[in-house]
């Protein structure tokens, strides 16, 4: 064996991370939703922002979201390894060490908050810092393993990006940004409970007290329906604020009718029927809920664009 071969065998760990593994730590799919909702919050605000400042701000909001994702993966590596959906994440898969994920998460959190403060204003930076803290500490470390309300309260972390985007533009918080927050906050529970219904025993195996584990599937189905009913007035009500308008109202009415119908179908079914067709309805509602949120924020954007031509709003 040559010296080079011996060296290679010493240094070449099979699980050594590539660049993509570090990107995966930042939960890029979640980040894309954060980027979109923060961008809508920024563009729907009545104060114009220089494009470079807007681009940089969105970038740092996304970086902050990614940092909280890395911190979440560091903390949850033990339960991620037990769930099929998360077992291939870089830390449980062994490609990135837990300490590296922690270091990356902390470093990117600091960079994102400081840079957002410099690019826009202190309120936006403070909100981003609080969002990272809320997701990494309040949700991941505290609520997730403690209560079946984990998703309900933890949903606040995902609801902050449009508020931060709005704060970048206006330097403040208002009823409009609070409504965008409420829309995501109320949407999160039925979205994740639909997922929990068809992920079957993933959460129970990991000991995460999801509603399906603590209260059973029948109760979870009822919760999906009740929370969807509570979501409707928030979503439709936003149409009658300065960021809404007739176009938003029409889109929102259709989407809410669809979501309500899906939630009602979930509530009507029992486990035997769901098992028989491979949780078809639950999967459909989960997918629909993604479009539901995307299209609602798309409608805010549409109204903002129409206002630019003097047509949006009431």
């Amino acid at each position, binding site marked *: 064996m040559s010296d080079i071969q011996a060296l*290679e065998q010493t*240094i*070449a*760990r099979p699980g*050594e*991370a*590539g*660049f*993509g593994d*570090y*990107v995966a730590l930042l939960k890029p799919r979640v980040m894309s939703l954060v980027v979109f909702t923060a961008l809508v919050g920024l563009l729907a605000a009545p104060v114009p922002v*220089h494009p*470079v*400042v807007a*681009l*940089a701000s969105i*970038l740092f909001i996304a970086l902050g979201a990614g940092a909280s994702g890395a911190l979440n993966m560091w903390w949850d590596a033990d339960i991620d390894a037990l769930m099929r959906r998360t077992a291939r994440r870089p830390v449980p898969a062994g490609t990135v060490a837990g300490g590296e994920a922690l270091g990356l998460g902390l470093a990117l959190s600091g960079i994102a908050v400081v840079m957002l403060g*410099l*690019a826009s204003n202190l309120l936006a930076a403070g909100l981003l810092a609080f969002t990272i803290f809320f997701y990494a500490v309040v949700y991941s470390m505290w609520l997730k393993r403690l209560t079946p309300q984990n998703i309900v309260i933890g949903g606040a972390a995902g609801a902050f990006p449009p508020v931060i985007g709005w704060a970048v533009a206006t330097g403040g918080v208002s009823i409009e940004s609070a409504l965008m927050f409420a829309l995501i906050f109320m949407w999160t529970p039925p979205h994740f409970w639909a997922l929990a219904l068809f992920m079957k025993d993933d959460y129970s195996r990991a000991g995460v007290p999801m509603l399906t584990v603590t209260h059973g599937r029948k109760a979870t189905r009822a919760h999906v329906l009740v929370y969807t009913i509570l979501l409707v007035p928030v979503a439709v009500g936003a149409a009658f604020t300065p960021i809404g308008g007739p176009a938003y109202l029409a889109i929102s009415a259709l989407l809410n009718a669809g979501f309500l119908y899906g939630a009602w179908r979930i509530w009507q079914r029992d486990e035997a029927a769901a098992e028989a067709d491979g949780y078809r309805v639950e999967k459909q509602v989960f997918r629909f809920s993604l479009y539901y949120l995307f299209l609602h924020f798309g409608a805010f954007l549409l109204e903002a664009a129409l206002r630019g031509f003097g047509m949006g709003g009431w």
Partner: protein
Amino acid sequence: MSFRPDHEIYRRRLGRNVGLGLTLVAFAAVIFGLTVVKVTESGPIQGYDHVVQPGLVPQEGTQ
């Protein structure tokens, strides 16, 4: 005579280094762009620069 192909680990490390390099270049570009915007949006900047500039001298009677 042919060279032995590189171990896969070198490709992975090259990818990681190139990725990090591009990220740093992008970060520097964002900082540069932000600096240009912040400086140009803050209006004209004047200082004495070792030479008295009459435009910066307070007028009598004004505070």
